[in-house]
């Protein structure tokens, strides 16, 4: 996906005037504003008021009775397993039983292992946020087990291109200086780019 010119975002946030934009950018802003105008006009939707009030007025069973009903109600469990994962589970069990050794991670055909390494001496915490975890701080934490200032994490990711940044001490967003490839993040900074290649034959690099 090609990032938009930052001025388009600024215009849509009301931070700059649309009239100050060059014509080609103004067209993009107008296209999005037209789309928003159409989305704001939802078709007539049925009211739920009567339904909700009817439920509210219904006397609720006592907590003990609700627990009893919950315990007595049958619970349908649906487990969908791809055949390739079933074979993988069988392979793992066979490896454990036959060799007694703990196997490495089993990767899908289009997955690889991404190693994240950052040097942040003195940091209290380091995380990696990116397109693979929806840029969510706290989702992926790096570790510095020997306290030498070098933080690491390894993730199994789908093969392909991923963008990411490090978040140091929960507040400082840092571009990985060792990434080698970068893209503009639309905020005046750069996201590092990681290419994950499929691991043929499974196991860690």
């Amino acid at each position, binding site marked *: *996906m*090609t*990032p*938009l010119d930052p001025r*388009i*975002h600024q215009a*849509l946030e009301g931070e700059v005037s649309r009239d100050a934009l060059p014509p080609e950018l103004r067209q*993009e802003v107008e*296209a*999005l504003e*037209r*789309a*928003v105008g*159409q*989305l*704001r006009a*939802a*078709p007539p*939707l*049925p*009211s*739920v*008021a009567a*339904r*909700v*009030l009817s*439920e*509210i*007025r219904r006397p609720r069973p006592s907590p003990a009775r609700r627990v009893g009903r919950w315990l007595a109600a049958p619970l349908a469990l649906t487990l969908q397993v791809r055949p390739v994962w079933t074979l993988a589970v069988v392979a793992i069990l066979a490896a454990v039983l036959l060799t007694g050794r703990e196997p490495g991670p089993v990767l899908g055909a289009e997955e690889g292992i991404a190693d994240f390494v950052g040097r942040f001496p003195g940091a209290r915490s380091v995380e990696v946020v990116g397109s693979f975890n*929806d*840029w*969510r*701080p706290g989702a992926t934490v790096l570790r510095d087990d020997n306290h030498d200032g070098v933080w690491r994490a390894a993730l199994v990711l789908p093969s392909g291109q991923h963008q990411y940044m490090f978040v140091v001490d929960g507040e400082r*967003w840092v571009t990985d200086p060792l990434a080698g490839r970068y893209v503009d993040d*639309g905020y005046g900074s750069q996201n590092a780019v990681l290419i994950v290649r499929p691991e043929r034959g499974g196991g860690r690099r």
Partner: protein
Amino acid sequence: MRDAPDAAVVARVLGGDPEAFGVLIHRYEPELLRFAYRMLGRPDAAADAVADAFIRAYRHLAGCRDPAHLRPWLYRIVSNRCKSQLARRQRDEIPLEEAPPLADPADSDADLDRAEQLEQVEAALARLAPEQREAFVLRHVQGLSYAEMVAATGVVATTLRMRVHRAREALLAALKEFA
């Protein structure tokens, strides 16, 4: 009671007047239904999500920490119901047979163009990842501020801005593809 602030209505409900909850339903139902419809793409699914959300809100009203700002709290409950529905679906697209019908061929060319454009916009919205769709709809369609969006989603503002940006990019790209 109809014009009373949210905190006063909540206090009345918690004080033993469940009918007063109807004031909150009438106050927030239109925007919550529109939000759920834009998230789920189906009127019946939107109605189910919003009805379920209001019932949960009533039952957990005492747990609302800031009754003076009920709006983000209600959005949060509706958003969670929408995500539960989306997670149960195989595909996040508006099924063609349930898409809003095009205008009658007897309508004017302008009406046909408008109907076709709306269909394209809705199809483009349906192609967004749920988190991006939610952020875009909350920001642009529902008009929430980023502070309200943080309260409604529990996600930090920087991440929400990123999702809105990505949603704009994806939406424009899809609209160009349909054009």
